[in-house]
């Protein structure tokens, strides 16, 4: 049974927040029996109200510095890695959810982790190398046509750093004259994309991810209703 109401947060420290909320609203119409609440998250208290979280694009260095000052890092790590709640990071959000990042600022930058991958920041170069490309995302289902992937100073997944097969590659892109790059990955409750579905009018990735959120919470509600409500869910999805 899906829960009657689901609260999805969008981490609102900086970046493309309202774009995600607008597309999540549109995507939620695919699940008419569920009441969705979409919440901008700036504090640990707001995070504690969320069943799932989107970490938007922006500048990952800025987000890390602001998150540290607001005391959000530990609550975010608990949300992602202990409570295993559904989380999706786009661009800077993917960087934040990686266990390792290269091409970071001098002295490195703090990450939340959750994806056993190393991301390479600004893979394609500066803004003049930013681009849009058709992506074949099989998880969206057959016959839907390619997804317009918007890549802005985008990171890519440089390497999966844990060989036990938990990280699933869900999308790649190949720029002319370059090698194929991993641009969408999933590991259990954590999903990451290099590109920005929130900058398109195409609702498919948001709808797919909300479907995953609904599914994960439905499974939790089945056996562990009380545990979920107390915020200590340890739902495993593989």
């Amino acid at each position, binding site marked *: 049974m899906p829960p009657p109401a689901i609260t999805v947060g969008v981490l609102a420290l*900086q970046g493309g927040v309202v774009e995600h909320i607008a597309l999540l609203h549109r995507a939620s119409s695919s699940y008419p029996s569920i009441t969705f609440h979409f919440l901008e998250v700036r504090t640990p208290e707001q995070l504690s109200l969320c069943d799932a979280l989107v970490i938007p*694009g922006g*500048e990952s260095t800025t987000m890390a*510095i602001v998150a540290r000052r*607001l005391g959000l890092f530990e609550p975010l790590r608990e949300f992602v890695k202990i409570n295993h709640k559904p989380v999706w990071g786009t661009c800077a959000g993917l960087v934040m959810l990686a266990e390792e990042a290269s091409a970071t*600022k001098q002295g490195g930058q703090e990450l939340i982790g959750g994806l056993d991958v190393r991301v390479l920041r600004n893979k394609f170069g500066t*803004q*003049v190398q930013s681009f*849009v490309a058709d992506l074949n995302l099989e998880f969206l289902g057959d016959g839907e046509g390619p997804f317009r992937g918007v890549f*802005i100073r985008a990171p890519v997944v440089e390497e999966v750093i844990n060989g036990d097969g938990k990280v699933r590659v869900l999308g790649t892109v190949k720029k002319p004259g370059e090698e194929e790059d991993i641009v969408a990955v999933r590991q259990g409750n954590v999903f990451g994309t290099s590109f920005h579905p929130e900058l398109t009018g195409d609702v498919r990735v948001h709808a797919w991810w909300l479907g995953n959120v609904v599914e994960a919470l439905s499974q939790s509600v089945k056996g562990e209703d009380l545990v979920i409500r107390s915020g200590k869910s340890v739902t495993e999805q593989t």
Partner: protein
Amino acid sequence: MATNLANGLSSISDDFTVKAGLAQMLKGGVIMDVTNVEQARIAEEAGAVAVMALERIPSDIRKVGGVVRMSNPEMIKEIQAAVTIPVMAKARIGHIVECQILEALGIDYVDESEVLTPADDQYHVQKTDFKVPFVCGCRNLGEALRRIKEGAAFIRTKGEAGTGDVVEAVKHIRTVNAEIAQAKAALASEGELGIAKLAREIGADPILLKQTAELGRLPVVNFAAGGVATPADAALMMQLGCDGVFVGSGIFKDALDREHAAKRARAIVKAVANWTDKKALIEASIEHGTAMKGISNADLKEEERLAGRGW
């Protein structure tokens, strides 16, 4: 402001999506003027979303005077090598070749800026001709939409740069807001004819004006700039509806030392990230310490005003 800018501009090209998209990713952030590698590193460590590389901060441009041009590419390259956040740089109004040079340097955003001495008294740069995106200043809605029509993917208020006096930036955002409200009213009461009439009056493209009226905001990201000197100034501009803030002289001018500049930078980032949180604004104001001395806008002679450059 729960507006999806990308959806609002559903007819736009991929090229413009990518240009405007970077500005969308900078929202809620602070872009800081820096003149060397050390300042750029201070800005990045403080949490700036981008830096603007220029030879002198605007308050020193006022002091030194003379013709002010694009910065030396050598200095820009050093700053690009020192930080991972986007690096922006200024070109003179209408100076196509300065823009070409900045584009070839791999600058992330060109600011076609009134802070530099204009190179053309008739034309701004045709920004659609470039792959690099542009940010431009405005004092009102007509000026903002003229720049967007030329291809600007990001708008800022002009304010009065280098003064540390926020009054002009406030005037410019209030003017833009009032004219957007006027456009909404015109669309609601008179439809297309109302938009066409207002478009003629303010010298704007009617299609962009209609889009603005429908969105209830500028169709691209809009930051505050020009005279923002303190955390309270920055939060004021956010509360007036700006998407983020450029801080020019306010970080490094009259700073006691490196650490004071770093504290000021952190304080302004904090104020922009928490612009409605009064407790955070108190903390940010304390951390910021003494602000730049500044020049009252009212004391400026007409020829000392930079905002009047461009049209």
